[in-house]
């Protein structure tokens, strides 16, 4: 998936690094110091619908061409996450215990058109 540049109108991944210090949460989130809050944005014109972003194969390229030449696009397509990974957190709970946990699907790694 391309990372969004200001002039990128098509579906891409917008990267934001969030430092927990900036949230005022470093007193209870011990590790890591921050995380990548990425999200997907951009247009999904008909010929990109169903294309999985960087994972596009020859098949999906041909499939896209067929769709682009189809005068009646089948409904709208949205720019959505196609790959996400967990975030491992170490934090203090309200009793002052240290909790280590993996939060699933926290970081968007790739976007694509639904």
């Amino acid at each position, binding site marked *: 998936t391309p990372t969004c540049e*200001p002039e*990128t*109108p*098509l579906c891409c991944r917008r990267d*934001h690094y*969030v430092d927990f210090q*900036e*949230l005022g*949460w470093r*007193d*209870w*989130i*011990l590790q890591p110091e921050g*995380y990548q*809050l990425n*999200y997907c*944005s*951009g*247009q999904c014109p008909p010929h990109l619908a169903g294309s999985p972003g960087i994972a596009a194969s020859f098949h999906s390229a041909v499939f896209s061409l067929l769709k682009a030449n189809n005068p009646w696009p089948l409904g709208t397509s949205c*720019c959505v996450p196609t790959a996400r990974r967990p*975030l*491992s*957190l*170490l*934090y*203090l*709970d*309200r*009793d*002052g*215990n*240290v*909790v*280590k*946990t*993996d*939060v*699933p699907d*926290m970081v968007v790694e790739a976007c694509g058109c639904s």
Partner: protein
Amino acid sequence: QGAGAACPSCGGPTPAPQAERALVLELAKQQILEGLHLTSRPRITHPPPQAALARALRRLQPGSVAPANGEEVISFATTTGPSTSACSSVLTFHLSTAQSHHLYHARLWLHVFPTLPGTLFLRIFRWSPGSGHQGSRTLLAEHQTTAPGWHALTLPSSGLRGEESPVLKLQLNCRLLEGNTTSAQQPRQLLDTAGDQRPFLELKIRPSEPGAGRARRR
């Protein structure tokens, strides 16, 4: 990002960078609290001392990944009981977050003073406040050592479950052995129960309701 630029997704006006940053920070707060199943950030009233925290984290397997679909908890003891000797202290742990989970692994870490003069015989009881003043106690583990330093005692997780109260009390009972008999003179301090090397529990828990793991994995 220009003034006239339209948002490529919804066609609305692209927010100014500061507004977008504020939105992202708010989104991050929501995402973290939702991921931890919290409604608001915890207010830490009794943070553990930094030294004890650093030591405990070093004790856990460095770089170990949290158990798949579960959590690892380190809970520091607050000690009550006669200050004369740690050998009859009651260690109190507050485990409200672990209460609604299934506990499947528990270890009690204790630090034996370097001045240990012989063989230490240690028993760990679970103390439950019963109806009467006395309360009841259940033997959880026995341990014998001649080595000072940190010791990790595995406790039966079944022995730690069950109570409604989020407060867990463990009673220590230790004495010095000479051969197989109890030594006549008992030194005052054998275990460190209050300093930076205070005891702590290392627990592994996972969601208790059936199927929750699958939902989270999904």
